[in-house]
């Protein structure tokens, strides 16, 4: 259970830092009137959406950290046989990086009000993300053809489950991205798209990060790190 504990420790540090700025040590019965430390929020819906996404990413992070914890515990058992990673994963990784970069470009374009650059960035991100997902499907087919079946070894099963769950999350993101693209094409101004594009970009970067972590675990690079995590507990 090492990776989830590391993840939660990180969250705990953020939470403590945040709480320390919220006056949790103050004596509320001594304070009257409209408290001064309450910062006026100019735009509730954008800050709420951003906070919402941050909390959601914490949940997604916890989900993947738990999968990795399970992976780390399961891989110690003697029947484990590593899966050779299909080469196409590297291409897919490149696609996902491009996708993230494109969305970052779109975010910048939205901020600066450049409509064409925004549309281009959104579209490029969508296409590359779809390319990533198709590439993942190809990787599945390839593994299946080579005899790495789901049920034949838990290493295979974890490969399918981890890539599958990651793919589903990206697919969910694509729905949000698709809606943003539609709105952009229907003539919503870049200023009004700023929030949605920003949220998509953050989500994309996070999914890229998750993918890189998954990849490093599946490729075995993270083995050493996992060993350390495990030793913390056992």
């Amino acid at each position, binding site marked *: 259970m090492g990776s989830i504990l590391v993840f939660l420790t990180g969250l705990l540090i953020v939470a403590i830092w945040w*709480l320390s700025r919220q006056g949790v040590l103050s004596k509320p019965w*001594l304070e*009257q009137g409209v408290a001064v430390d309450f910062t006026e929020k100019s735009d*509730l819906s954008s800050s709420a959406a951003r906070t919402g996404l941050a*909390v959601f990413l914490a949940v997604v992070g*916890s989900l993947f950290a*738990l999968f990795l914890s399970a992976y780390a515990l*399961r891989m110690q058992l003697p029947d484990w046989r590593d899966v050779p990673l299909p080469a196409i994963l590297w291409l897919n990784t490149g696609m996902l990086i491009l996708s993230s970069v494109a969305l970052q470009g779109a975010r910048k374009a939205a901020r600066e009000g450049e409509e064409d650059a925004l549309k281009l960035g959104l579209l490029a991100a969508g296409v590359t993300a779809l390319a990533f997902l198709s590439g993942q499907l190809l990787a599945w087919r390839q593994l299946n053809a080579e005899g790495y079946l789901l049920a034949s070894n838990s290493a295979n099963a974890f490969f399918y489950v981890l890539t599958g769950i990651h793919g589903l999350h990206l697919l969910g993101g694509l729905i949000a991205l698709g809606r943003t693209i539609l709105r952009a094409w229907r003539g919503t101004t870049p200023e009004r798209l700023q929030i949605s594009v920003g949220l998509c970009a953050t989500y994309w970067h996070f999914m890229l990060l998750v993918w890189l972590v998954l990849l490093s675990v599946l490729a075995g690079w993270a083995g050493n790190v996992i060993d350390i995590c495990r030793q913390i507990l*056992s």
Partner: protein
Amino acid sequence: MTDVPLGHVGPAPAADVEDVELYHPHSWITKYVFSQDAKVIAIQYSLTALSVGLIALVLSWLMRLQLGFPGVFTFIDANAYYQFITMHGMMMVVYVLTALFLGGFGNYLIPLMVGARDMVFPYVNMLSFWIYFLAVLILVASFFAPGGPTGAGWTLYPPQAILSGTPGGQDWGIILMLVSLMVFIIGFTMGGLNYVVTVLQGRARGMTLMRMPLTVWGIFTASFMALLAFPALFVGAVMMLFDRALGTSFFMPAIVEMGQTLDRNGGSPLLFQHLFWFFGHPEVYIVALPAFGIVSDLISTHARRNIFGYRMMVWALLAIGALSFVVWAHHMYVSGMNPYFGFFFATTTLIIAIPTAIKVYNWVLTLWRGDIHLNVPMLFALAFIVTFLNGGLTGLFLGNVVVDVPLSDTMFVVAHFHMVMGVAPILVIFGAIYHWYPKVTGRMLDDTLGKIHFWVTFLGAYLIFFPMHYLGLMGVPRRYYEIGEMSFVPLSAHTLNAFITIVALIVGAVQLLFVFNLFWSLRHGRASGGNPWRATTLEWQTPETPPPHGNWGKEVPTVYRWAYDYSVPGAAEDYIPQNQPGTQSSAGMSHG
């Protein structure tokens, strides 16, 4: 019974959501069925959860009939018995308590108590309820599936949960259970995001964190924990579903089942237990923390005294929330895991007793030198302290690794967790319903019926579960369809079992009285006014009762003080609402 006139609210501008931004329903369907109003969603959640609770109650009757009078009720065979205990447990823990505290009370109270017009994502909030409802339907559907629901025990330990020796293991039961849980978790995540983000972003002007009532703190912390803990159950459910349906070996080692060698290899049953309890232990506090928060507010309001040690109460809540993620393996002392874990988990478990004890002290110290009104909600709150204290103290037996060895998997455990996370939170739920029903409906629940309900429930539950510990101490294991002959169990124990069954039937029947009261008072209850308990918190200061969609009419309230200005020396009344400016106050006079 003075209502606070709205004139007391200062001329501050509406802080947050403009009224026009809210989605206003136009038809009956969008107003009451696919509603985006957190208060309607709260009622939908509560009624669904209470209905599931009634099903689970009937299941508990059936299993008690079997335990109290083995062999008399022949329609309860071993298969049915295990299905009943499994569904009773899972329903009560997840679909009743979690849904009711977070989905029900969370939805109703968070926006009102922090001074928001609604949850920050109303549409997602609506989806959350309907997905929860779907999860309930899937769960209930398993009663009608071939082979019936799963009988694996609510802990669903593999391998038995997915093998043929367990009811539903090779039928639909376990699949429906796992799918239902996954759907529930997706729905809950949507709701949980709302509860957390509304507290973070939706608070009215002046509502600093440390001015929030403890109810909000409890629900907020619990929601956050649930968001992080439920994924563990999700991961376990996905993996078990793969094992059951697709033949993988996540949790399945080499197995010879009834002489047949299965095509599995190498999996780890303990891996599931780690995942399950990584969710399962925080789950206990996910249920307990909202109860802690609510009971703090009930005691404070009805004792007319500020909650003693508010800051400590907040810190204790946060400490319990954080610590509860590092105690999970205390459910696994005799599971065959590395025995050295026992030292660590026993220590963390007993450490968590300290902030919990502080909370108990502070509730009791709030009564000291108070002005105690023994209204029905207060009675339930006091009964909560008794049962929670009792269950918490027996937790010190089970958390202390070596003491747990003879007691684990016995009726002692059953008695302990029913006392601490069954009876105690349910007493709070009742207390909270008696307390907030006037806000929801504008009418009081009937007092006499309430008192009968209270005394029978409280004393009955205590009579059921206190002696049950001693069955476990004798060595009677839990999850036995019939005890049968056991050389170390005296005959009198069977009499005790029959006694417990009879009391359980009575306590169960009295709940029908409560349901009757809920409906009867809707029409015939005494009109309550806006603030019948003369409470300080914002939900009692709404311009209309019941509050309409949008809660606050034209202006969102501004908050000038903490939630516990009761019996402030020199004040005209023995309470000062949070949204009342005024400078007369005793305590420190120092501003800011």
